[in-house]
């Protein structure tokens, strides 16, 4: 199966062409190839893994539904990824109103810079998960996905200034938390 997947991966265009014609096998291969990465992307935004999976499923459904609209100008993964981000935002919006806190979250500890501590992926995810939803979304979109503030503003239906301020605040909170982690880590060691 793995060999088959690797062989087919070499011919992604052919797979896409077949998937457009609703070839279920080709769709399955594409799903197998991209779903682990895409679930991880959805997980950036959504704390609950089952909800993240739901967002991913919705995303893949749209991928195969509108696959013929995919113009092979960019990478296929990039195209799917943008769909996943939208679906994650959509799912969060559907659940509840996303809040973008205007007030600073109280900073108890001072810290001018991030320490160079080697954080595990789970720790990073936990740090992101603990951010207020608005902060988290703007931070992930800007720092991880590489969206511009104008794009974030459009997708989240907020102003660019709000996007910028949300990023600033998210960074601030993350800094505090990393510093806190380092301190507690030092303490344990």
């Amino acid at each position, binding site marked *: 199966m793995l060999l088959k997947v690797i062989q087919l991966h070499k011919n992604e265009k052919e797979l896409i062409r077949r998937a457009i014609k*609703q070839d*279920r096998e080709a*769709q*399955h291969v594409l*799903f*197998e190839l991209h*779903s*682990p*990465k895409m*679930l*991880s992307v959805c*997980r*950036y935004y959504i704390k609950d*893994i089952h909800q*993240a*999976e739901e967002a*991913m*499923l919705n995303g*893949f*459904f749209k991928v*195969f*539904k509108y696959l013929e609209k995919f113009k092979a100008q960019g990478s296929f993964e990039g195209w799917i990824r943008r769909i996943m981000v939208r679906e994650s935002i959509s799912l969060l919006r559907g659940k509840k109103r996303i809040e973008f806190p205007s007030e600073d979250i109280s900073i108890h500890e001072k810290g*001018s*810079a*991030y320490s*160079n501590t080697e*954080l*595990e*992926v789970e720790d*990073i*995810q936990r740090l992101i998960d603990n951010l207020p939803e608005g902060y988290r979304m703007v931070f992930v979109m800007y*720092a*991880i996905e590489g969206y511009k503030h104008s794009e974030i503003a459009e997708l989240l239906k907020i102003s660019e200034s709000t996007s910028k301020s949300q990023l600033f605040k998210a*960074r601030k909170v*993350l*800094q505090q938390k*990393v510093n806190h982690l380092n301190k507690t880590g030092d303490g344990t060691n």
Partner: protein
Amino acid sequence: MAPIKFEEDIRERLEKRELQPSADVWQKLSNRLDAEPKRKRNISYWRLGIAASFAGLIMVSSILFLKSSDTNINTPALVEEETVKTVEETELINTVTEEESIQKSQIVLEELEKEGKNQKKEFTPVNVVVVETKNDQLLVMEENATEDTTTKVLAFKETAIASTVDSIQTIEQKMVDEVVAEIQKLQEEKSTVTDAEIDALLHQAQKELTSKHLYDASTKIVDAELLLLQVETDLDQSFRDRVFEVLNSGYKKVRTAVAERNN
């Protein structure tokens, strides 16, 4: 710079992460995709229906349009009226010239009588045929019964009365004249002219006529439409009809003229 370094670091780590979805996720997705095409197919049938109805509408409208345009084209009824008019005109001209032709035929007969007297031969005209063409060329054919099969033909060329016939018609007319002359020549030579001979003459004339129409020597252009028409027998038929018509009408006129004169 520090936040950027931190962000780069966490991006790298997060990008390496992969989360394996539950085993049933693909099945769920597959079921959803299976359900989707049915709806799509329904939509496509619906669209197909609309497209078909549009196509039908276009066909019906085009048929109606063509019919209406046909009625417009069928105004050749007017053209036919015009041709009838021209026929009437020619008939009028014929009636005008009829008197002249009667006079002419009288003169002809008088002359023939004179000739007959000079030759001291009995001259009793039995049958005189005047062939009248549109150029008002009169071909008078006379059969002298007493002198067996000898036939004297006198042709009169009248100055053209203002005629509306075009050059093609005049060419045709010339052909008619030529054919009639040929028949008369044959009559001179033989006692009887068979239908086959007349047919052959008509066929030859027909050929010449179509070739003249086909190729214009002055412009060196071959008429493609006429080339196609050559295949059709309609023209052949009309030309033949015209020859017989002219022969017949001319015969009747002269017969009545002679009858009146005798009276």
